[in-house]
């Protein structure tokens, strides 16, 4: 049973439930208390001890059902069968000695696997498969490409070599039996393949997901395929959670050396005002105030989409975000993003300002006219765009004024550095007024850029 539980813990980790060694010890102790006879209670017990959130509970419940729908290794089965006391038990425990009546003739001299198949004892075959699977350490399977090698390893562990020899021999001596055996072997292969696929689902999920995410993180956002958009949104949400965890720590820091007289007196009232305990003045850290100007024309639109999604999922970390979208002209989109789901919000924004040819000059002019007053010395202004203004007036002077009014001006450009300043790109002209310029084409670069922006406030 212990071995089984360990395999279950590994499967649980595969399903994305974080099982620490301490928790697995707890689970072991708990299972020791309730026993394994009642599957419902066992399930409740594992859910109570291992899963620590609602999502984890759901994942673990699925994992439990999948795990125990597998044929269990024989030790366990025999325990259960003994209590059931059925006829099957006898034939199962000595499968080779009690073959089915119809095929009893001429099976002598065959290998154990052949005899097992001919006996047509399903329980025994399943048990043998499970045994061979653990011998081939199926729980190490990680990627779908490994399915072939694990199948053949399991079959080898079951003794397919001997079976092949038997088959060769039988084709000459007893072709009818050989044909039956071939058919049975086909069935066995099928069930082994199934076992391996199940193992992959159980143990390989996390690894496969990590690999996929890693690839996705480094894929250029502007060119990802439509089917990956959903995964990307999920990834962005993960990034947002990570940033939240990292930066939403308490924002009070003690400043030694400056006595807080009021609090000291109050704290020492019990001693008649004699200051035994001192209280020091604290410094409040500002939370970031962000104004984001996003280009939503053609090629940059998708990057803006993900960027806005990320910025707006940072509520706990960021005090105040105001977002503006522009291509030909500029509008405020904060309310749209707050009130609608990401998909709808982006559609809405696109229908209002999207798909025009971008005009940075007039968009900046729009911003200066209406929203310049929102900028304070605590504000970080982020401009996301490729700075390709179709040879219209870039109005770099407005950008200078924006830069002067704010704490920092960060420019995120999805194009590669090589192309900045070529063609109609005004990047070099804008660059003089920016505190930071970053290339920002992939999810990973996006994460770093936002992380840096938030970190400057810590």
């Amino acid at each position, binding site marked *: 049973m212990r071995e089984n539980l360990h395999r279950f813990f590994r499967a649980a980790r595969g399903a994305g439930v974080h099982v620490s060694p301490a928790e697995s010890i707890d689970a072991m102790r708990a299972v020791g208390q309730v*026993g394994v006879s009642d599957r419902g209670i066992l399930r409740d017990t594992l859910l109570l001890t291992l899963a620590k959130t*609602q999502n984890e509970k759901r994942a673990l419940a699925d994992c439990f059902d999948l795990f125990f729908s597998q044929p269990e290794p024989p030790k366990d089965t025999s325990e259960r069968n003994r209590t059931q006391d059925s006829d099957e038990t006898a034939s199962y425990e000595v499968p080779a000695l009690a073959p089915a009546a119809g095929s009893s003739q001429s099976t002598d001299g065959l290998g154990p696997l052949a005899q097992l198949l001919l006996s047509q004892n399903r329980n025994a075959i399943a048990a043998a498969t499970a045994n061979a699977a653990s011998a081939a350490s199926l729980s190490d399977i990680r990627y779908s490409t490994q399915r072939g090698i694990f199948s053949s390893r399991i079959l080898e562990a079951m003794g397919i070599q001997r079976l092949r020899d038997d088959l060769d021999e039988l084709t000459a001596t007893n072709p009818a039996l050989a044909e039956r055996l071939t058919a049975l072997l086909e069935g066995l292969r099928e069930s082994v393949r199934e076992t391996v696929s199940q193992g992959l689902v159980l143990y390989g999920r996390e690894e496969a997901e990590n690999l996929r995410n890693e690839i996705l993180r480094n894929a250029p956002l502007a060119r990802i395929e439509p089917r990956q958009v959903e995964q990307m949104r999920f990834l962005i949400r993960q990034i947002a959670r990570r940033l939240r965890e990292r930066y939403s720590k308490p924002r009070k820091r003690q400043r030694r050396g400056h006595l807080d007289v009021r609090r000291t007196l109050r704290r020492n009232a019990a001693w008649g005002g004699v200051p035994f305990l001192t209280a020091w003045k604290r410094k409040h850290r500002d939370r970031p105030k962000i104004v984001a100007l996003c280009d939503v024309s053609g090629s940059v639109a998708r990057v803006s989409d993900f960027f806005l999604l990320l910025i707006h999922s940072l509520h706990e970390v960021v005090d105040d975000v105001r977002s503006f979208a522009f291509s030909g002209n500029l509008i405020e989109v904060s309310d749209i993003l707050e009130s609608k789901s990401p998909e709808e919000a982006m559609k809405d924004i696109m229908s209002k300002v999207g798909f025009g040819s971008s005009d940075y000059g007039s968009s900046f002019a729009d911003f200066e006219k209406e929203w310049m007053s929102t900028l304070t010395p605590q504000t970080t202004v982020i401009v996301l765009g490729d700075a390709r203004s179709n040879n219209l007036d870039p109005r770099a002077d407005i950008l200078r004024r924006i830069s002067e009014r704010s704490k920092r001006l960060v420019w995120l450009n999805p194009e590669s550095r090589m192309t900045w300043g070529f063609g109609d790109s005004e990047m070099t002209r804008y660059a003089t007024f920016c505190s930071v310029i970053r290339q920002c084409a992939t999810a990973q670069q996006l994460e770093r850029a936002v992380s840096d922006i938030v970190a400057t406030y810590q």
Partner: protein
Amino acid sequence: MAEHRPSTSIEAVESGLAAQGYIASRQIATAVYLSQAIDKPILVEGPAGVGKTELAKAIAAWRGQKMIRLQCYEGLDEAKALYEWKYAKQLLYTQILKDKLGEVLGGAATLHAALEQLHDFGDVFFSKEFVEPRPLLQALEQPAGCVLLVDEIDKSDAEFESLLLEILSDFQVTIPELGTVSAITPPTVILTSNSERDLGDALKRRCLHLHIGFPEQKLEERIVESRVPGISQTLRRQMVGFINEIRTLDLKKLPSVSETIDWARVLVLLQASELDHQIVKDTLNVLLKYESDIEAALPQVTTFVAKAIRQNVFG
């Protein structure tokens, strides 16, 4: 066989809680049993009003133990949760004992000798006599054990969580002046949380995690039956069916078990024998606590009532 025992003890928990008027699902009963068996606190999460606090009360009543409750809020600290020195008493005693102090120190020839004598004497003021035990320390000092309820832990600060860790894993606290105080009998600890913020992993790791959601219809009927005995079976079934329909709506605050019980009481008080849409409309404010929720639910009332009654006929 040894393996038969657990399921019977889980049933014993279930019936024991039921005797106190708390109808527990099997998962809750398993959690209560396990927390006793492996000495682990239970962290209960779930929406407001599903009986998280009630569970602790029921356990205490069932075991005949005292319940000690610590309500968490922002700014809760050591002095209010764990222990505090009785400053006033210390001050008073030094005043009263002033003469005695003079006597003690009077015999000393040098300053050094006086200090020596004062050392022997000084620890008196930092002894158990002058410690004011707060809920957590009280819980450890109960000789017969107790149920310690740390209510709404998510409302407290993250620092307070760390303070709890020592108590949760080892059932002991360390007071610098006195040393470590261990529990005489390990208390049963129940922590509740409304998931207002995510709790730390360290805290979660030390607990059994129990999520109480809205109960199934059958279970909820039993709960109503146990809490509001005067209600007829037909009405009970209809109202629980209706509430289950309401919960499918997208509302700000879904009605939970406590609202169901309140509503049952109201219906009994109004001597309703059957659900009809007029009485539902009149009493909807018992179930729903936001104006916008009531507005959203009103147009659906007639259909839901009809559904609940139909369900009753066939079910």
